[in-house]
């Protein structure tokens, strides 16, 4: 099965620092892949390369077999790629509903059959944003804004969803709800790659896990496999390995 997302031998340098070092990664369609690693490992940089707002020094990115290495972000969105951001990037002065509408309306730009209002209403309902739909996004708490970002991304009906720390700022309850939602979406065919620090979230949710450390891909495989790799334990998990229930 052709991977939906293929990152091939990608390197990103910032001056003397190598943020991403010859990383190759394949993501199968319909799977949920977790990207973990210590701070500064290069996870968000890699995301930025895939999303198109960071140019890589070497390497290739392919989406559904198409080379998107030099495609601009909005083109990638058109091809089915959506993402959220590590530091909140909601449209602060628009309301929650309008944020999601923007995503849906953009989608309508390349698919005339889309009904943005209906899409937005459905997502607001799914994400439980009803009570705050008419409030300005920047007046809402962080967790709610993350949900708004997620809604905006989903409003584009993407094939591939990149989530950068989606659970950050969410309560335990909200995290669980989100995980359930993601599982359901993956079941419906959405491919998800997530960057996470919440280990229990990652281990429970993901089909495969990749770990970056100082820009290098040090481990890749199923959660069980990765859990036992010594480099992973040493560099990242420390003594509180696993952290299940």
């Amino acid at each position, binding site marked *: 099965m052709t991977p939906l997302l293929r990152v091939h031998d990608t390197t990103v340098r910032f001056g003397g620092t190598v943020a991403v070092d010859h990383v190759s990664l394949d993501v199968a369609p319909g799977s949920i892949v977790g990207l973990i690693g210590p701070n500064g490992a290069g996870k968000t940089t890699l995301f*930025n390369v895939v999303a*198109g707002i960071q140019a890589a020094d070497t390497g290739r990115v392919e989406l559904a077999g198409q080379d998107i290495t030099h495609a601009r*972000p909005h083109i990638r969105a058109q091809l089915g790629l959506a993402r959220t951001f590590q530091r*909140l990037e909601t449209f*602060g002065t628009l309301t929650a509903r309008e944020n999601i*509408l923007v*995503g849906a309306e953009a989608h309508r730009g390349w698919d005339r059959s889309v009904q943005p209002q209906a899409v937005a209403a459905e997502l607001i309902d799914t994400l439980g944003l009803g009570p705050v739909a008419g409030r*300005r996004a920047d007046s809402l708490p962080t967790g709610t804004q993350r949900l708004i970002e997620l809604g905006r991304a989903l409003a584009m009906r993407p094939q591939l969803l990149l989530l950068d720390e989606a659970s950050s700022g969410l309560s335990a309850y909200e995290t669980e709800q989100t995980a359930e939602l993601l599982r359901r979406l993956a079941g419906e065919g959405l491919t998800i790659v997530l960057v996470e620090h919440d280990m229990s979230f990652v281990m429970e949710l993901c089909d495969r896990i990749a770990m970056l450390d100082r820009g290098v891909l040090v481990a890749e495989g199923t959660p069980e496999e990765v859990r036992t790799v010594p480099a992973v334990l040493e560099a990242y998990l420390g003594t509180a390995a696993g952290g299940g229930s």
Partner: protein
Amino acid sequence: MARIITMQRVPWGRAVVPVVLAAGLCLVANAAWAGRPVTLETVTQLLVFALPVAGIYAVSATGLVVVHSATGIFNFAQGAIGMLCAFVYWELSVRRDLPVWLAMVLVVAVFAPLLGIALDKLLMRRLKRAPLAAQLVGTVGLLIALLGLATLTWNPNNSYPLSPLGGSGGIEIAGVQLTWHRLITITVAILLAVAVQLILRGTRLGISMRAVVDSEDTAALYGVRPARVSATAWVIGCVSAALAGILIAPEVGNMSAETLSLLIVNAFAAAVFGRLRSLSMTYLGALLLGLLVTFSSTFLQFGGRWANLPNALPALALFAVLLLLPQATIRLGGAVRTYPMERLPSRRSVGGGTLALALFVLLAGLLASDSVLGRLVMAMSLAIVLLGLVPLMGWAGIPFLAPLALAGCGGFFTYWAGGSVAALLVAGGATAVVGVLVALPALRLRDLYLALSSVALALVTASVVLTQPEIFEQARTLDRLSLLGVDIGDPARFLGYAAVVYLLLALTLVRLRRSPLGRRFVALRDSEAAAACSGINVARHKALVFAIAGAVSGIGGGVLVQGARFASSDQFGMIGGLAIVLSLTVMGVGTVSGALAAGLMGALLTTLSLEWAPGNFTHTLELVGPALAVLALSDHPRGQIPMFRELIRERPFAFAAATTGLAAGLAAGIGLGLPGSVGVVVAVLLAWAAVVVTAARRDDGGRLPADPPPGGGQGGPADAGTGIDTPFTATGVAMLDRSLGLELERTR
């Protein structure tokens, strides 16, 4: 500070711009060659001519860079501060006859620091937190205010001779005398750069300054005292300005306040060359700029249509430098210091506003004299021009300081298409295309550099483009306007026509804001990265918003020339453009009514001073008005209209009282025939008192009131002080639950 990451890197792209520029320079030099022989002697002479010019640029640009590094603010008024110090120096050293060294010490070591502290406390601390465009126009307002202060205190019709330092001798190189004064200027620029560099990078104070620029709150957490650091930064800035002013003043004809204040604009290119942080590169930039300007005046000659090109060289150099900068970047980390968005006007307020405007126009048409009507027509035209900035600056958050450049193009297209009402449509369309061209820098540049490029655009348009013989080299006259056979050249009717055009455009813009496209513009401003990743073609949308701005401002320019019945390049100058952007920002850049209010305010002030209350006070008011405007701006960066809207909403009776007080005072002044100044003073003070009283009792910042009113209070977000400064109440708890989304949990 947000992390900035680069976009698509195209290796050969970086080389294209310098090559094109170099080729362009060669072509121009070839065409405009004056025939002076190129020998070793003349080239050496060129260098010697260039050094003093470079010295002036260097000492000005160093001040700019110093202030920006130390305070984070790009200070348009840097030259004006220097000008003021130079006048004080004249006052001390020439009029009071103090020895030169004493006068210099008093100005540089006493007056300038005090001025710096005062500016910091009164103005800059507040401007610091304002959106970038408000900061820039705030400093422009300061420039105008200082100019006004100087012309009030030292009448420009008198003479203020200042002798150069070091007397008349100097060093002779290749037959050219390099005076001591010029050598001192060059040296002081270097010493200043070195000294400031040492302070900023080598001392704790300097590092604190830079920390405060980056993030004041974080710096405060580390024990830095932002207030003290900020004051010190402005002291350093004003001292630099004073040095520059004292050194440049003897080189300028009769100490013209305006020339001294505006010379700084020529130094922008040098400052930007140094990226506003490297003083050595700034110095190099000043040298290059000096060489360019001197080369043009010695070896080239421009005549005919290009006669004004040498004047525009610094602006063109600024453009070139901005283009040469590495392509800017999509910023992550949320919208940095832009305007909080205004609430969409409700249909009721739109209807009310339309009605109010219609009533006003009707009353004016019936009651006002022809000359007042003429001014109102000008005000309405400027309001339409400013409307174009609302989507550009207010929604999309793109700083643009050259509305009159667009209006000038619109005025020309209107004239060229016959000057009729239908010509406005041609003007709108053609200026929309111009807008798209102007959008090109916006694709490469951000924030401050984008704003500076618009200043360069304003300068080049006014001095080179609009003065072409085909355009407005000679002032053009237009015929009386008629619409469908009905003559509307009469001022009252024209005012109605202009108001209709304004309304149509304003209502269209409101409609646009509500539409998906309007949302996308705001999305662009809030987070360009997220917008791009949400499928929005950033480049296309930027071009589109510029096109809209061009169309609207172009139509505004058309109405302006139709109303004035003539068109000339003087109507569309750079300073005028900055002044109306200032007015718009003071009134509220996010609102369509802000544009109208800004236009009317200018007309009101002029009318007050000329017709109802001639005399010293209103002349003062006119000159000092900008100072008040800047203070108003720093106090309410969102603008007066939003402030007044809130005031009306929250305290309708107090607002009505204030307006009535003002109107009553004015009416009394006019009706009773009080000496004009008295009437105006009374009216203004009455209104001010009312506003002050109102504002003092108004809650700001959304704090929970200590005693919540029975009935539950308003549903604002909870304030962090609750539970610490003020006790929790049941209402407060309910609000907290709502804010935290705990209600959601309970309903599941």
